[in-house]
């Protein structure tokens, strides 16, 4: 049971925690239930993102009675489940259509947002081996300090360290989750062993090293942050049973 009743605020990066944990529990044969926040605003936010629908589709018990379905014009892509490259392509194009249709953000940023989302989503599909698939959403979020595009992708898979360990050449370089995440952002590092692969996450990391942008990746008990004035910082953190990537781009 995931008890969100006391939540007064859910940061966008935490939204997919509320999805992955209960769905993983359900996939492992446990009766899974999410107690929705009593805070009406938080509850409405999660409902508008499509969180409760995704959970119920996964047979997680959710009592969202009385929570209104308010269309959110700032939501570029609701929480969506995907398992294949073609599904990622469909979602990327749907998100691009929404960005253009709602005239959100500058034209040059729209391609960046789609590219970042797609590369993170493709990594989840191709490397995570997640039994529950992968999830992602894109939101135009109004923070106090300014508006941002938020892309979040998560899976309940094996994590970056175990993915890289599939490449025998990397096994002696990834002892902990945090150094595995850091290594994965480097050029041509891939668990596939293919010397031409390993450019997706490297490219996203390079794009996030720009003013005001931020990339945070959590996998297993490791985490990594990349910002313009913080080339990268990796640390031990609380367990996430899979990988979650959060990208934030100012408009």
């Amino acid at each position: 049971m995931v008890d969100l009743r006391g939540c007064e605020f859910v940061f966008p990066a935490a939204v997919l925690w509320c999805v992955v944990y209960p769905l993983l529990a359900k996939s492992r044969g446990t009766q899974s239930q999410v107690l929705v926040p009593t805070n009406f605003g938080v509850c409405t936010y999660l409902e508008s993102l499509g969180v409760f629908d995704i959970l119920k589709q996964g047979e997680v018990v959710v009592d969202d009675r009385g929570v209104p379905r308010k269309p959110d014009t700032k939501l570029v892509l609701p929480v969506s489940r995907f398992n294949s490259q073609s599904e990622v392509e469909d979602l990327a194009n749907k998100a691009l259509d929404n960005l253009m249709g709602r005239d959100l953000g500058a034209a040059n940023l729209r391609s960046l947002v789609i590219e970042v989302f797609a590369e993170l989503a493709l990594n989840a599909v191709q490397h995570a081996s997640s039994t529950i698939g992968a999830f992602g959403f894109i939101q135009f979020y109004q923070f106090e300090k300014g508006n941002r595009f938020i892309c979040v992708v998560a899976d309940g898979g094996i994590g970056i360290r175990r993915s890289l360990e599939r490449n025998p050449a990397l096994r002696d370089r990834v002892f902990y989750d945090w150094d595995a995440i850091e290594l994965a952002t480097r050029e041509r590092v891939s668990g596939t062993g293919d010397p031409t692969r390993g450019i997706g996450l490297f490219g996203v990391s390079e794009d996030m090293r720009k003013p005001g942008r931020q990339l945070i990746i959590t996998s297993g008990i490791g985490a990594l942050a990349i910002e313009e004035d913080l080339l990268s910082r990796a640390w031990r953190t609380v367990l996430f049973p899979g990988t979650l990537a959060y990208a934030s781009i100012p408009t």
Partner: protein
Amino acid sequence: MSEVINVYGLLGTRALVTREAAQRLGPAIAASLARKADQVALDFSQTLGITPSFLDELLRVVQDSLRDSGIMQVRLKLKNPPTRLSLKFMALARGRGVRLAEADGDTWLIAVESPTG
């Protein structure tokens, strides 16, 4: 001889993000090489986004087509690319052993050689 492939006309999507999307350009590229084109232009004028994964796979598709056709090299011209030529695209070109340069602000030039060359 130069050939032009309208990418949006062929694929029908504005965001080209997957390796699968690049593979769908394979037959058109192979057909151009079969017609002895020494330059193949891909017009991205209605494309609004591409990923490094897409471009990397496109280069692989071109290299495989060169190998299969027995042609040693081809000039690839990407017209109206939807994004600027950044470090990540230069990095993937290095990894593929191809030369990539920007020309005229709206064209990328790529010299691709057959992997058997």
